């Protein structure tokens, strides 16, 4: 099923519905640049994937999203299973057709929302048992049901149902049970997956913050040879040092010619550090959610445009940004939006949320585009240095988890 080719110039590997081509590797860190070819076209890695929870990226038209350069975004299986529901998805012909999106889609398993949003979700060997938000009747999400839903959605990348536990849980026995169950559920997912020729199923490494358990899980999961691999259970409130250790431990063991997806990661610092640790793909609702609270993500940090100091600030949202909001009006398709205008309408007109969403998505995608260029030119360490210099007033303010993690892969931010 998995065929790896090693040629003189490039290294690539393909499975039925995916090709992974390694373009460049950083000579200092573990950062990699690659091309992932999916059923709806190629995407450049490393990349950030914005989250279109209910088949819509929070007010942006698919045309506007496409213009940011996005070629792979997320839908949430749990939400689409509720609305419009599996029957409608089948009748319409899947989520691409529903939302008019001709590029790639990735869906989660639905398990995370069951646990995070619903009270009284209990996990048994069979699946996740919960009360229906419609009528309160007991329902069960099994690996088979999750696959069936994701097959109806037709996502280019599907995620296995996993047994998610907060990483900070002190219960080592339960943690081991969750990790081992996730492996068993992967086998059930693989068996239930109806379209392996046109949809890719990714496994999810579990094991909490216990590095040995993570290593064990890596071995088990890798043996099952899925076309891509996710590192799950993170971004649940664990210390950033622990997060970095888990990512570094996993990437060390993962095969080189498969995409590595760290789930639920979205702060710019996290992306830049995770790329250095050898991860390729990230998703998070934070950039789009924070936009709706009036926050702009910029290379100089996050600005709350609702603050009074921006009321008469006629500069662009981010100086030097190339997004359609920040570039001056007069250029084709560019708007010349000022902070004052966003301030004027933040929390009042939906347009302000749309503009910040557009800017923030563009920022995240562009950050990864720049990281990729730096890796290809083999100057990723310099890129990381510059990124932190712009973000923080001085070196003393750098977060210690980031400096520690980066030192582990050969970048010392404190070097003169």
């Amino acid at each position: 099923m998995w065929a790896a080719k090693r040629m003189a110039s490039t290294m690539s590997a393909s499975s039925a519905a995916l090709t992974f081509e390694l373009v460049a590797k950083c000579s200092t860190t573990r950062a990699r640049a690659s091309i992932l070819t999916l059923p709806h076209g190629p995407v450049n890695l490393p990349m950030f994937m914005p989250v279109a929870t209910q088949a819509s990226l929070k007010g942006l038209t698919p045309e506007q999203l496409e213009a940011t350069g996005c070629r792979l975004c997320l839908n949430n299986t749990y939400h689409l299973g509720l609305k419009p529901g599996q029957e409608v998805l089948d009748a319409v012909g899947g989520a691409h057709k529903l939302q008019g999106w001709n590029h790639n889609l990735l869906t989660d398993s639905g398990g995370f929302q069951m646990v995070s949003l619903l009270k009284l979700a209990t996990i048994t060997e069979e699946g996740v048992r919960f009360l229906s938000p419609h009528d309160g009747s007991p329902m069960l999400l099994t690996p088979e049901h999750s696959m069936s839903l994701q097959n109806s959605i037709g996502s280019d990348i599907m995620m296995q149902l996993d047994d998610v536990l907060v990483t900070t849980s002190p219960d080592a026995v339960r943690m081991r049970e969750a990790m081992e169950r996730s492996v068993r559920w992967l086998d059930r997912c693989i068996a239930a997956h109806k379209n392996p020729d046109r949809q890719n199923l990714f496994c999810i490494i579990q094991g909490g913050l216990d590095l040995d358990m993570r290593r064990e899980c890596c071995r088990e999961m890798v043996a099952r040879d899925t076309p891509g691999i996710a590192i799950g259970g993170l971004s649940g409130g664990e210390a950033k040092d622990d997060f970095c250790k888990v990512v570094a431990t996993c990437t060390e063991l993962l095969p080189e010619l498969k995409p590595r997806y760290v789930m639920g990661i979205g702060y710019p610092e996290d992306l830049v550090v995770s790329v250095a640790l050898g991860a390729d793909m990230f998703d998070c609702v934070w950039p789009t959610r924070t936009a709706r609270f009036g926050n702009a993500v910029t290379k100089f940090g996050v600005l709350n445009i609702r603050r009074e100091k921006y009321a008469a600030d006629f500069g662009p949202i981010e100086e030097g940004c190339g997004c359609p909001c920040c570039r001056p009006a007069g250029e084709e398709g560019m708007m010349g939006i000022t902070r004052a205008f966003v301030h004027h309408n933040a929390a009042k007109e939906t347009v302000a949320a749309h503009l910040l969403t557009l800017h923030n998505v563009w920022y995240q995608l562009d950050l990864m585009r720049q990281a990729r260029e730096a890796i290809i030119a083999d100057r990723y360490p310099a890129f990381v240095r510059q990124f932190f210099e712009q973000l923080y007033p001085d070196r003393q303010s750098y977060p210690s988890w980031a400096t520690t993690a980066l030192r582990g892969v050969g970048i010392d931010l404190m070097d003169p």
Partner: protein
Amino acid sequence: MSDESNAPAVMTFEVLKAAVRDGAAARLGRLALAGRKTVIDTPNYFANTSRGTVPHVTPDNISKHLQTGGAYMALEDFIEKPQQYSTRRPPIYDTPTPVPPAKALHNFTAMPPSVITILGARRLPAVPSPMGNSNKSVSVFTSTGFQVLATDEYQAAVQALKPDIAVPLADLTNHTMTPTSKRALRMAERTDDWIKAWFAEQDAVNAEANPTTRVSTFAPVLPINYSIQWEYLERLAEDHFHSLSGLAVYDPDVLPDIASGYPDLLKLPQLSLAAPVTPHHVLRQITLGIDVFVLPFINAVSDSGVALTFSFPPPPSQSTTNPNNEKTGTPGILPLGIDMSSTAHQTDLSPLVDSCTCYTCTSHHRAFIQHLLSAREMLGWTLLQIHNHAVMANFFAGIRQSLSSSSTTTDEEDNEFTKACAAFHTLYEPELPAGMGERPRARGYHFKSEGGKEKSGEKGGKRNKPAWTKFDDEKVTATGQQSSQPPN
């Protein structure tokens, strides 16, 4: 894109064809604005805005997907005084204008240069003020509450913001109730005083100004009897005709009297601020001689989840049946729009309107719009706005087409446009359908809540469902529908 080399130096309006008869009647025209390349063929409409934006439509989508040639803005949307910063000068007045033509209102709102701006004091429709106006000021409603706007302050704002068209202050009650004759007389007198002061200053400013930044004045025509405001209208016709660029008509039924009293005033473009509530009302105002409309109902319709479906001239009636109307036994009556929130559209992959060429209809389908409305995703309203504006633009294009092919020699009854209007009234339902979709959250500047009705849910009470309630197991099972809207 504005291109000054091709743009006229002063605003021009020509009546290309006065259909049917002289006086107040439907007519074809062409409006060209000083300093802008945009030419507006009339009859036509301008988009209504809220706080300087066409609701739900970002400026890039306005340029790309809306056909509107103008946008009506209200000064009251820009001059609120937040409690902690009550002395601050409204930021809009400090908008830099680095690139000519220096138009602060355009720059502040990022309105594309192809769209002309019309500035009035009040939103459309305006929330009535309990304070009323004085001899030197009007009461306006900002996002932080009612505020007094002095007449000279308004004029200074127009000078600072440089809209393409400004509507001078009128003493309006903004009430559906007809004012008493005493109040109506005072409305006329005050508006007359204010227009004198307006032109005294405006004429001086315009004499100095660069033609590209000249502000065109559309003087208000009050929603009161002609017999009460004729002196004011006489002043417009006799003292200020050459400084006037158009009329802003709050009640088009006054136009026939103006046609007989001061026919010269009808050489000017007539902008309706009377907020017609359906396309039937629009057609009626066109037959009274209105050239351009501001249409608040487009946004209201989109917010309610309705897609407009009518066209002008109407399709031949024999080929049409209305499945929604079987129960009333009146086949042939078509709805003006479709409630897209209905689950009937859940798996319907057809466009909102088959022949429509708008972005929504060419790139998306009914099933998606239905899903977005049901999930309360903001994109639903955006896509409906794009479609509904396209339907309105086509409606006016159809009207112009019909007017241009109408013969002016035949009797009014036999005129093609008159016949098309009659067919439209017969074919389409009189009212827009009430959309069942849950609307976007209403904000404080959209309405004034009235005391004593908070709990009852009647008009004037709470407009929004509470976004969050206490978590309660029994409630969740009882009203399961509510909790089916998790955050992302």
